[in-house]
């Protein structure tokens, strides 16, 4: 019987939305306050949903400790209290929450059995969030 298990993780990070290929004026037009030179930060919430058969022995789709081991180690520890722009992942792409969501999906799906990751949702603030599903 297929069910889904979800977990929400918090992390705080700073970023600046700026693309070197555009002029300062174009960056300000595209990103507004998010282009301020010294960056700013958010309390991000990462919601991860995994799907699969419920193991009759454990009653679980996946043990929370196994999911935590992946997401805490590969995502939270990597980005929490960091400047996203300085992460190698964002040296050549702008750290919008769309791109962060896409990269978190890629990292987590690479650590889980194929097809198990249903979606990653990244909430940048209480009022905006992004979801990435398998293509």
């Amino acid at each position, binding site marked *: *019987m297929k*069910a*889904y*298990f*979800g*977990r929400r993780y918090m992390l705080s990070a700073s970023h600046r939305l700026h693309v070197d290929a555009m002029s300062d004026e174009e960056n300000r037009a595209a990103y507004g306050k998010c282009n301020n030179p010294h960056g700013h930060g958010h309390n991000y919430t990462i919601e991860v949903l995994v799907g699969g058969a419920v193991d009759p*022995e454990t*009653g679980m789709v996946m043990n929370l400790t196994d999911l935590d081991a992946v997401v805490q180690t590969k995502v939270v520890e990597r980005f929490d209290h960091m400047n996203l722009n300085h992460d190698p992942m964002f040296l050549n792409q702008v750290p919008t929450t769309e791109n962060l969501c896409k990269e978190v999906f890629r990292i987590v799906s690479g650590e889980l059995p194929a097809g198990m990751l249903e979606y990653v949702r990244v909430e940048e603030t209480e009022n905006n969030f992004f979801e990435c599903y398998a293509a």
Partner: protein
Amino acid sequence: MIFLTRRATFAAAHYYWNDGWSEEKNREIFGKCANRNGHGHNYTLEVTVAGEPNAVTGFVVDLKWLKDVMEREVLAAFDHRHLNHEVPEFAKTVPTTENIAIAAWRRLEPTINSTGGAKLSRVRVYETPEIFAEYRGEA
């Protein structure tokens, strides 16, 4: 198609234990959840129903009706109960959040799907604000 969701909360006790395993293995797999004296949560039940709005009422289903169904079919059995000891589904099944979502689905589906229009689409159960499971009726 419109998806309508109603939330309700209940508080219950449970513990995780597999009788087929040693005490050591239960503690290894289930951690603190294997404490036989149990522990409890404030659960949130989210029930999503899918359908087209009725041409006259504009409702997919009447929310008051859905609230009453949730209270009668699920909350009356789960709220302020010890899931392992007082809810028949968990006499032999571990009351994980996944299994609570499946049990709630089975209790709700016959009534909700008998209306003729709307169908039960999703049951999501939050054990804490950070931990949840859902069931969509899949085999």
